[in-house]
């Protein structure tokens, strides 16, 4: 019999309440079975596993996220545990002090929840709806673009650039977000455009 149970298989089986029987079948005595029965149910039973990578540094360690609820089935999903992905060739399951605490990042108190506006001269943020915020930002963009867009330079060369509004792109968003950002920013003629490569 192959007793080479991985930690995850072992705990999974134990937590599912099959511990006594399964362990008995493997030849463990009753004491061990009773002990296994006394272990509190494993918290990752009945969770959904999702593969991801650590968002911090560019080692890009593989992680497994465990959630209650399955996003793919259209359910709300709450992530309850994150650990290193043992199958990942780079990190082979290990995580550093940053990656090991990822759950606290996902659930940080200071995660943003609602769009906010701070009006000129004010000393506080106020809630605003997405519709209102997006409408207003688009208006601000258009007004500035219309006022300051440079269609041609002094020599009459078509230059089609907009230098008075700029965009600082993230460096932890996906390549897909990056390309969408590129399209939106460049099509508007923006040239004040940079990312975090330098800092």
């Amino acid at each position: 019999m192959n007793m080479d149970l991985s930690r995850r298989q072992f705990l999974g089986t134990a937590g599912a309440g099959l511990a006594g029987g399964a362990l008995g079948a493997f030849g463990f005595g009753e004491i061990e079975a009773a002990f296994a029965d006394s272990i509190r149910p494993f918290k990752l039973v009945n969770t959904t596993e999702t593969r991801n990578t650590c968002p911090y540094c560019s080692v890009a360690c593989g992680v497994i996220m465990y959630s209650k609820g399955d996003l793919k089935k259209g359910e709300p999903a709450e992530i309850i545990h994150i650990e290193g992905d043992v199958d990942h060739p780079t990190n082979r399951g290990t995580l550093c002090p940053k990656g090991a605490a990822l759950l606290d990042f996902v659930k940080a108190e200071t995660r943003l929840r609602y769009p906010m506006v701070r009006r000129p001269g004010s000393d506080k943020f106020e809630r605003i709806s997405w519709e209102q915020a997006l409408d207003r930002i688009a208006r601000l963009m258009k007004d500035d673009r219309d006022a300051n867009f440079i269609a041609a330079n002094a020599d009459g060369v078509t230059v089609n650039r907009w230098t008075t509004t700029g965009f600082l792109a993230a460096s932890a968003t996906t390549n897909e977000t990056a390309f969408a950002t590129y399209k939106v920013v460049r099509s508007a003629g923006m040239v004040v455009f940079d990312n975090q490569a330098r800092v």
Partner: protein
Amino acid sequence: MTNSWTDIRNTDLVVIMGGNAAEAHPCGFKWVTEAKANRGAKLIVVDPRYTRSAAVSDVYAPIRQGADIAFLLGVIRYCIENDKVQWDYVKAFTNAAYIVKDGFAFEDGLFTGYDEKKRDYDKSTWDYVIGADGYAVVDNSLENPRCVWNLLKEHVSVYTPEMVERVCGTPKAKFLKIAEMIAECSSPTKTMTSMYALGWTQHSKGSQNIRAMAMLQLILGNIGVRGGGMNALRGHSNIQGLTDVGLMSNLIPGYMNLPTEKEVDFDAYMKTRGFKPLRPGQTSYWQNYKKFFVSFLKSMYGAAATPANHFAYDWLPKLDVPFYDVLRAFELMHQGKMTGYFCQGFNPLQSFPNRKKISDSLSKLKFLVVMDPLDTETARFWEKHGDINDVDPAKIATEVYQLPSTCFAEDDGSLTNSGRWLQWHWAGGTAPAEAKRDTWILAQLHLRLKQLYREEGGAFADPILNLEWPYADPGDPTAEEIAKEINGKALGVVKDPADPTKVLVEAGKLVPSFAALRDDGSTACGCWIYSGCFNENGNNMARRDTTDPDNTGAYLKWAFAWPVNRRILYNRASADINGKAWDPSRKLIEWDGAKWSGYDVPDIAPTAKPNEVGPFIMNPEGVSRLFVRGMMRDGPFPAHYEPFESPVINPVSPRMQSNPVARIFQDDLRQFAKAGSTEFPFAATSYRLTEHFHYWTKHVRVNAVLQPEFFVEISEELAALRKIKLGGWVRVWSKRGSVRAKAVVTKRIRPLICDGKAVHIVGIPLHWGFTGVAKEGFGPNALTPFVGDANIETPEYKAFLVNIEPIDWPEA
């Protein structure tokens, strides 16, 4: 990285200089440990601090920050002097034999052609002699005194071990020990890897730091081989990707360039991009530039990009200055020349130099939009937080929008790691409350802008109205849809140019790779170097097969690496001139008489004969460059210059203290401390801690507990000199600002003797601010100077001058 994290297992010698992998990239550093344990590899660490990387090194040497070029050119000089050169590699695979134009010279710290007023060079002499046949003239005997090799020899001759000690403060014996260990890797069967990060880039000559090491690696024959390479460890998880996809002022995805005003039309733009080979029979792969460029324009403007309008070339903005980088952006803002600014997952108030200037600049904006999963200081730059953010909200008229975005756990898509692996990840959790994906936010803004232009008209709106937007739900594009756009597809039928009866890609299908791209408008591709990432085989970035034949560390079936799933760049150079592996135990690809094959995707045409086609296929020379012609602003060879704020006068060229072509704005010049300043006598540097990631993890309880508060790190000697106690409060100030911190007095930093003078170092970690769950604290950017690297404008965070004194401060 030219190589990958998992390839580091193949090395014999690791040099960590300009980085601190054990703390900043801990799980990648494990491959150093593997190489040490399994191959007996050695580790050298050169750093101003005795870091945790240094703690497990075989040899550690201290160095003054900003002196790396002197050190590296010293090693190159040592290798040349002692004939520790991989000669077959250097002769066949570098431009050592190329003859340089008469007139090119280096004197008094300057190359030929300097214009002091413009702070720029006329680079016309920095080039090869071109023969009557149109090719570069070479002297394979290396006897011609004007060949690159002899010019290099002369250029590095001043960097003697004594000079290295004077400049770097590295004791001569230590330097020689390290030079000797490195020189051993000139053997074809020994390789060294270079691991570096921001410790090399964040200098006014950062690009040349890296070049100096790249040159050394070429001389040792370590580029393109297993366990070798130039390995930029990089910072954020997708900084490689953001750069690849061209999110910079002057870039087009895939390292193409946005036009400048001088390139008045499509033909003028293409004229300088012919990339004619400089030696007979060479690949010069950039000859395909037009295919990639036109395919990019088709991905932007779809059917509106036609041969008649030169594929909408005019719709791309044209630049009037080389870059609108972040430093220029904030300079313009400071001058009141900007209206609005977007910060997507970015915290410039904490990240950019001269914090006071950043804060003043943001205050001059009409509007600021912050998209972030976390509450950032930038979004609250107008909020008063004691002496840490000392502003008056009533006086700040900026309208600020803070938009909640999802984090990694709630988003699908790919990130590119430093080893160029595009790895797909999946959302597993529901986003909090109203947080939205960035793609949704951007789509919403674009659609609104488009709507406004449709309704109202306004400044030239064609590019906005005609932007290709082919998503099933235009308001919410999916990651898969965009990934396919990036990969590229055939718009018409793509036929084999050699045999027009053969169809390579049917219309409407995803292209297998960039080899199928065309310059006639029949293909579209968002980012050519990523092509192949999501083709008709499916999402290759999501592959999870860990097969790795013979444990080379290539993992060809895991995710997707650009370009075309190649894991080690320039891998043709892993084999000798005849195509046999330099080191049979570290075979990568070999020539079997008819084709190239092996453990990696060959970085050469599969049937290109080894004696004819050089391994550096992107270069028109077909070889690599020890002399880089006019491609870098500050010289075809690196030279030592002091940081803009330095404790000493440049010992190598006293008449040229700092990088002669680094861009400086007038207002900032006044805010630099003089060389050898008594007012600011100490050499400061910024760094990161293993428990924190930038300004994110102060929001994370575990990390906030591990490293709760801001501190500065000084030596016992400096503590004694200034009567500073361990754990006591200090004030540290520069010509631009002041911070308050607890003092950590350690043995990890020691004073160095540079040019006969004791140089004390002040280490300043950067993880605190006034949002999150850690204690409120300052950061080094309150102190750092507003000057960047001469080539790419990376700010000089790693070397500046400060003063320090003990202060009384009540405990909170």
